[in-house]
């Protein structure tokens, strides 16, 4: 959620149970302004909080000219001193998915170890032990990357893609109507589209290439991996991801206000198919 409307937005997503206390909010108001200046971001988002066993990670995201490509993620423990997270590479994702298990600890230098036993040439005696070591900072980077990829949400029309491929905030976005806001079809994943190329020409003909350049939430598998509700006296539309428990998105219909926040333990809900 945009740092400029943080106070207001936090109040709207508080229905999920987690908020920030006043000290943290005020600290963020100060530090995110400095962050924006130092890193020359166009805008800064407060991304959320990952709960560790000892300490919690507060996460902010800076956006450049292209909202989708120019992203930088930073983390902090006290909401004041921010540290840059490395971008998640494919090899890092693979290593983290193999070794990192359980809850976050709250120490970026904590090392997760994983032994992989490989059999060479089919002979039993030639076992090779391979050790994979991953520190928690890279796990954090990968987790933030994955949540952004699988669960970041924007309403339809809030972002536009220019013919040059630049993704920017749509200044003329006036919000979804009450009827539109009740349907998952009008919400997009804010990450590179994957399902769009698989669509038939018939389905594509209805789409507006400037707006419909993202994947629709209603195509997610399994069906029902989003919980859509009206909250705050039914004025605010709230979407909760059931795959990443803790991700809450809000949109006030008929206004351009929208945003999402993740406050959770940073583990994916792999039991989802059993739970619906």
């Amino acid at each position, binding site marked *: 959620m945009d740092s400029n409307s943080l106070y207001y937005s936090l109040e709207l997503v*508080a229905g999920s149970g987690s908020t920030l206390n006043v000290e943290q909010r005020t600290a963020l108001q100060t530090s995110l302004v400095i962050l924006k200046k130092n890193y020359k971001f166009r805008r800064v988002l407060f991304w959320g909080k990952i709960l560790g066993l000892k300490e919690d990670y507060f996460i902010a995201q800076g956006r450049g000219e292209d909202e989708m490509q120019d992203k930088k993620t930073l983390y902090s423990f006290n909401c004041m001193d921010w540290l840059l997270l490395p971008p998640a590479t494919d090899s890092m994702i693979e290593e983290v998915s193999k070794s990192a298990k359980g809850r976050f600890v709250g120490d970026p230098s904590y090392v997760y170890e994983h032994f992989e036993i490989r059999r060479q040439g089919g002979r039993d005696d030639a076992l090779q032990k391979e050790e994979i070591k991953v520190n928690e900072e890279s796990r954090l980077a990968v987790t933030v990357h994955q949540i952004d990829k699988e669960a970041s949400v924007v309403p339809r029309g809030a972002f536009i893609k220019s013919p040059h491929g630049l993704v920017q905030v749509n200044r003329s976005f006036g919000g979804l109507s009450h009827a539109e806001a009740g349907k998952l079809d009008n919400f997009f994943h804010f990450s590179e589209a994957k399902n769009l190329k698989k669509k038939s020409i018939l389905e594509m003909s209805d789409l507006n290439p400037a707006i419909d350049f993202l994947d629709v939430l209603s195509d997610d598998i399994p069906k029902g991996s989003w919980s859509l509700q009206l909250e705050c006296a*039914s004025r605010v539309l709230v979407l909760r991801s059931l795959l990443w428990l803790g991700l809450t998105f809000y949109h006030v219909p008929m206004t351009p206000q929208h945003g999402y926040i993740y406050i959770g333990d940073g583990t994916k809900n792999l039991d989802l198919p059993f739970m619906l």
Partner: protein
Amino acid sequence: MDTTDGNQDKSEERLLSAASLKTFMMKASTESNLNLYDHLTCLLIKVMDEQPQNVVDVIEDMSRDVKQVCFEDNRSTLRDLPQTTAAELLAEQQRLLFSQPEETDQEEELMETPLPNVSEIGFYMEQAGVGLGREEMQRVFLALKQLVDSQALLCCRLWGKILGTESSYIVAEAEYREGEEEQSTEEVAEEEERKADVRENEMDPLPHSTYKALPAVPKEALGTGANKFLYYVCKEPGLPWVKLPSVSPAQITAARLIRKFFTGRLDTTVVSYPPFPGNEANYLRAQIARISAGTQVSPQGFFQAGEEEGDEEDEAPRDSYEMNPDFEGVAVAEMAESLSTWVHHVQHILQQGRCTWVNLAVKPGEDSNEEGEAEEKEEEPDEPEPEVGPPLLTPLSQDAEMFNTPPWTSKVSSTLTSQHAVAVLRSNLWPGAHAYACGKKFENIYVGWGLKHAGEGYIPAVPPLAQREYPSGPDITEALDPSVEEEQVLKEALEEQQADKEEMEDSDEQEEEDDD
């Protein structure tokens, strides 16, 4: 003359052709009911009005615009149906929360009220980083007031909120009042069974299953164990509160095995394996009981054990406590530092699904607690080992670690002004359960999905082995066909036997004759 006539003729002719062209142009289209003449007139008027540059290049677009306007005009004659939004409907419901009470007596106000100070709790909760939002908290506060007034409750507490996929539940905990009776669902079930029996008698009797279910563990009486408190839920503040049914041990044990999201509708059936006995209201109640037992904590010394126990039966777990009037409060830093300053004040639920163990080997009919325990002491040979959980007011430092994660995370709400901070405790076993303590005040709240932390991944229970269709015995096992030799051997043997028998009989007869 000729020329003038010719001119006249020509002009007449022209007029005529013009007229015919005009009529042609004025012919209405069968599809759109427009005609070209009017259309061109409109188009030219539009051109004259707007006077755009390079008219000739954009005339097609303008023509289309003109047609579109006609179409829109037609559509606008439809009357707009006013749409009622969910917000409007809810606002009507919530208006009642804000109605002014009719004259309240001053004396009554001074008396201790069962209504908790939710605003204060909300303030401390916000320090702890938990909450429902300030406005929502105020609405919940008013809804609780409505509940207390309508149900005349003795004591009431905001238990928390359970999120569902379609809507959420706000849960209020109320103390059980003496004499309050609940129509037990078991009786209803029995009645239904009887009805079913009657029906079966009428029909063709079907083969009966020989399967006998294990004896059901009896429910705990209202006001004790897992049924110590009553719970009311509502979907939104302002909507009616619904009382949850009491929980049975079978429901608790089944709820331990399944992992399901709540939908937000109390009457939905819980589709799961192993099957859950009851609908979502029962499931909700079972989860509330489990969460309460696991996560309701208080600072050590706030409660003390009730006076009446500890004398006769040492093994019987304590089930009551009272407020300690001498409680001074524990320093916040100390509370955040060590878990031993916190204690559980809700009884542990045993494997059996009850807080107090009941002996199932005892004949049914004597299911009251005391009798069960009395019989326990007689020590029958095949007596099962009685289950004993940790006693009430056990410190949290004795909680078991599961899935390599410590069960609790504690911290101070503020690092900058730690003098006035509150100690915050967060459960890792039940994500969403929080507790705070500050001086003599403490509170527990749960806001979450109502699910326990499952570690690496949930593994559903495997169905039991299929029962055998028939008991296997010598009469139905298939034997190998005997060969000819074997048959002959058998035949000879039989003949010999026969011969022996005859001989025997003969001798018997002889003997009999002798006897006579």
